[in-house]
């Protein structure tokens, strides 16, 4: 009799767990992936991409620093216009805990390298994957886009479009420096 | 005469043979001989009914095979072809069950079903068309034919269920239960009648050769009315073209415009068809009630069923569904899934047609459980077969007309 009862309890529990999982999956788990695009305060989606020197750059490797992510393309005019601003800010804060990563939406190595030489860019530039996984993770549509990430890895602020306002950039970086 | 024309003529002959077979079966039941219990009357007229039924079916098969030869692919790729195929399967199942049960009444109810479906199928475009890439697969043969074969059993189950209801509903009783049964039987019979009315309307107006064409400004969109447009589309979308007549028997057309929530080029046309069908059905029904069917259509048909054993009908209805259920599940679900996996990459797409096939399956699953485990026999079970067949017909036709989806190439 007791054996039978335990048997029943086990079977019912299995189904209870399955129902519970469904509800949890819907009400908690799915929330993150459905809305997709990260907001201010959300953890910045991590990535690991190649830079022009064929080294892998991982976003989470820079925790403890303020990271400025600039999504750009060699063909985009506002991107070209705002590059000197980033270079200036980079030189000013690079020793105080700032990292700027330019994520190029495309893998045209020759063109990008020439662009970097032409504009004298010294901060790291990485290529997004061929299917633009990183850009999709950040919900990028028009470029440029700039995200400022706090030392704890959450998004401090972002700007869609460009050219960037140098004052906003400098002050946001300064406010978040460790 | 080319093959395609020969094929169409075979179908026409088949249609009339089904009707003759129908009258043969009916005469076997209500003819003078059956009243006087004359020797051999039933047997003779049954043989006549069956003979014509068989001839009709053979003509139907001839239509099917010649069309196959003419088209170069199995003719089950559009609504006309599918519906005629379904009618052919119903014909086959009916003949097989007739041989098993020797019941004229089964023929009397199934032959018109096949004929009505042929007529209804003929409303849809009948051109032989080559196969689009999505249909170029041997699964077209396997999936569609098996599903239609399963559905033909549901059709016979429906015919037997309806006969059971007509046989057991007491038309002289006055209690609330029989009144309700009578009312609902009238509704079901009127729905069947409305399909006949619809076919007759479309064919008679087609025969006049007049069409009413509504177009938008650059004639890129148009809606072609065969029935006179009592209800026209929104003039800001489409207007009556110059070439079309602007009146019908002195009535200015369009009489009114469709309500604003009916968008799309065909919504108003479908609404117009519904209005025509409903109004004429109501007129015909009223006329019948005033003349031959004073106590209702059911009462007339009910008289035909008096000689039948209700339990045999109940059992027959259940047997057909029990046979059809696994066949439908095989063709309508498993084969459908395998093909869907091959063509679209997913075995299940939640496409309306698929969902409705699943609904048909779930409905008959519920039917079997209610019958086998909960003891729903007799009237309850018979009503389920009627509802079930309505769901089948909605899945086959309604989904394509009302909802579109991946199966939309099967539409009009």
């Amino acid at each position, binding site marked *: 009799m007791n054996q039978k009862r335990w048997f*029943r*309890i086990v*079977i*019912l529990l299995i*189904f209870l767990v*399955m*129902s519970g999982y*469904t*509800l949890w*999956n*819907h009400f908690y788990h799915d929330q993150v992936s459905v809305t997709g695009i990260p907001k201010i305060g959300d953890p910045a989606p991590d990535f690991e991409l*190649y830079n022009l020197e*064929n080294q892998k750059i991982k976003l989470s490797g820079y925790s403890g620093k303020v990271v400025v992510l600039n999504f750009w393309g*060699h*063909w985009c*005019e506002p991107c070209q216009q705002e590059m000197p601003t980033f270079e200036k800010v980079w030189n000013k804060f690079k020793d105080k805990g700032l990292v700027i990563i330019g994520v190029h939406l*495309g*893998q*045209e*190595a*020759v*063109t990008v*390298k*020439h662009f970097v030489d032409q504009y004298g860019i010294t901060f790291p530039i990485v290529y997004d*994957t*061929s*299917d633009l*996984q990183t850009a*999709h993770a950040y919900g990028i549509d028009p470029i440029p886009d700039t995200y400022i990430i706090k030392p704890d890895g959450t998004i401090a602020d972002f700007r869609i479009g460009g050219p960037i306002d140098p004052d906003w950039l400098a002050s946001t970086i300064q406010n978040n420096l460790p | 005469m080319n093959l395609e024309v020969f094929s169409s003529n075979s179908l026409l002959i088949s249609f009339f043979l089904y009707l003759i077979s129908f009258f043969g079966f009916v005469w076997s039941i209500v003819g003078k001989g059956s009243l006087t219990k004359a020797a051999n009357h039933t047997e003779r007229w049954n043989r006549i009914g069956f003979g014509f039924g068989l001839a009709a079916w053979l003509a139907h098969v001839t239509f099917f095979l010649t069309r196959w030869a003419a088209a170069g692919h199995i003719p089950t790729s559009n609504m006309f072809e599918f519906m005629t195929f379904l009618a052919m399967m119903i014909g086959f199942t009916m003949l097989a069950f007739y041989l098993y049960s020797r019941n004229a009444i089964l023929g009397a109810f199934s032959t018109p079903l096949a004929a009505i479906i042929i007529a209804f199928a003929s409303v849809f475009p009948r051109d032989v068309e*080559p196969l*689009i*890439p*999505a249909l*170029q*697969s041997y699964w077209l043969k396997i999936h569609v034919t098996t599903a239609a074969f399963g559905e033909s059993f549901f059709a016979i189950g429906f015919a037997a269920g309806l006969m059971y209801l007509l046989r057991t509903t*007491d038309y002289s009783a006055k209690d609330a239960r029989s009144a309700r049964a009578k009312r609902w039987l009238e509704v079901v019979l009127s729905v069947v009648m409305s399909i006949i009315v619809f076919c007759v309307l479309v064919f008679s107006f087609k025969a006049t050769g007049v069409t009413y064409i509504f177009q938008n400004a650059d004639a890129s969109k148009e809606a072609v009315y065969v029935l006179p447009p009592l209800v026209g589309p929104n003039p800001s979308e489409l207007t009556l073209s110059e070439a079309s007549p602007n009146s019908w028997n002195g009535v200015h057309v369009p009489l009114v415009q469709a309500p604003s929530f009916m968008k799309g080029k065909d919504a108003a046309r479908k609404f117009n068809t519904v209005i025509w069908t409903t109004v004429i059905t109501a007129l015909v029904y009223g006329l019948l009630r005033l003349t031959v069917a004073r106590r209702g259509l059911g009462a007339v048909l009910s008289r035909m069923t008096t000689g039948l054993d209700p339990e045999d009908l109940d*059992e027959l209805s259940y047997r057909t569904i029990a*046979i059809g*259920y*696994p066949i439908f*599940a095989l063709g309508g*679900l*498993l084969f459908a899934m395998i093909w869907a*996996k*091959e063509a679209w*990459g*997913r075995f299940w797409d*939640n496409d309306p047609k698929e*969902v*409705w096939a699943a*609904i048909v399956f*779930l409905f008959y*699953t*519920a039917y079997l459980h*209610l019958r*086998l*485990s*909960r003891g729903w026999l007799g009237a309850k079970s018979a009503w389920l077969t009627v509802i079930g067949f309505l769901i089948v017909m909605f899945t086959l036709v309604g989904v394509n007309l009302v*909802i579109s*989806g991946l199966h939309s190439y099967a539409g009009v």
Partner: protein
Amino acid sequence: MIDSVKCECGHANPTETVLCESCGKPLIELPEHELLEMRYDGIARRSQRTNPSVTDRIWRFFSSVKVAVNLIIFTLLLSSVGTIFPQESTLITIDGFKEISPEEYYSSTYGAAGELYYAFGFSHTYSSWWLTLLLILIGTSLVICSLDRILPLYRALSKQQAKKHPFFLRRQRLSLNRSSFEESWNVQFLLAAKKHGYKTHEVEDAIFLEKNRFSRWGPYINHIGLIVFLIALVFRSMVPDWTMDQYNAFTEGEIRQVPNTPFYLENKKFTLEYYPNESIPKLFQTDAVLYKCTSNCDNPNVDPTLKELMTKPIRVNEPLEYDGYSFYQYQFSIIPPQLNSIHVTLRSLNLKNQQTYGQFTLSLKNPKPEYTVGEYHLTLIDYKPDFSISADKKPTSKTQNANAPGFVFQVNGPNIPAEGKKFMYFPLPKDKAFYREADLNAKVGSPVELGVNGMQDLNFATAISYLNVRTDRVLPWIFAGIILFLVGVSIGLYWQHRRVWVRFDGSNMILGAHTNKNWLGFRRELYTILIKSGLTLDERDLVNSIEQEKEISNDES
């Protein structure tokens, strides 16, 4: 607590058993003029016990067929609601880009009704938590209903006794009572029954015929099939890695990485064919080559090492399948011809006595930085796919597409200074003329230039093929479940468990017969057997008198 009830035949039955498992005598009071309820042979179902605990109550709830049918009806109604408007999932995203937000789509296409439909979550009915929950409940009901019935049924059927109580026989739906018959009837009867495929059991004063007992297991087999199917579905939704479903664009002539897979796929050529004299398409075909990337994958700095796996024309209904991945022809778009790559020739600038040094292929999508041609070495310094001069007089690219490709090379080789010479190359004649390539190259003193020998050296893309890339590791289990279901259903519906009991009390014989389905067929068969055995009777005589009385009273009312 009493766990068993003893019948007068000596058999101990579980409590709440209706008919003795052994002799069939009723153990409780039954109405006189009713047929016996033979469902599950009158055995006690596991859930029907006195003093239920909470577990027992829940168990009993799920073991009810009524509950199961209600769950089925709910599922049916809710899924039909999901077909009113298209589902969100039909708004397909290609390479991750959504064309319109679902919310906007429903309100703009269907107005207020669409907004409500979206708000209530019917726009994703088939992935909603309530439908999933309903399926889990159906699964629970399937498992519990089956467990509850199969063991007791098995027990009852495996210990059937040939000799049944007269009460049991007289209340079967098919029943016959004879007081006189010939001595040899037994032998004739058994012989006839055997010919009809019955297993016969003869004991003193009783005969028992049985056939197709296995059909009783049909419902349980089909339930197991459904459980396999449902479990497969649950795992499918729980382990995302087992399924993949994405749409990717493959431009003609391009080798592209297939995202989230170890593969690269090349669209060599896309073919669109129409039927002669018709506007109906006959063929959509992508000539595809599948590669596996073995190293340097998705590293823009180094060429990936690709190993060719297979070549196949992908058509609708004919996907490319490899290692559990399938590539389906989904869509296509015909585009204005777009340069993919050029087979260029390096030649001397001297027009009068032009010399050629060799050929190489120049990609317009992502050209390589270094080329060796004969004795010359070329370095690609800059490439602008859509060359133009910006406002501040710098060369720039207006877009990412090769609309006006422009190259700057440095050449080293014989008779060229060590620092090399630069030269430009505009493949398209219009650009060549507009930017005066020849003048520029002559001005910087380049000894060489690039050129083509004709149209055959230009490789154009004229179509983009959209492929649907999928994996579904659970699929075999899903189909296995359905096949098991169909086998079970067929066993249960196409065969019937038929039993006949005969009991002799002196010169009196009572026959009772039972089938779980198809009474008409059974009645006819039994009638044939009895006629063969030498009895004279009418088929209607087999109908139980209780039933016949009921029919008569029905007809009179």
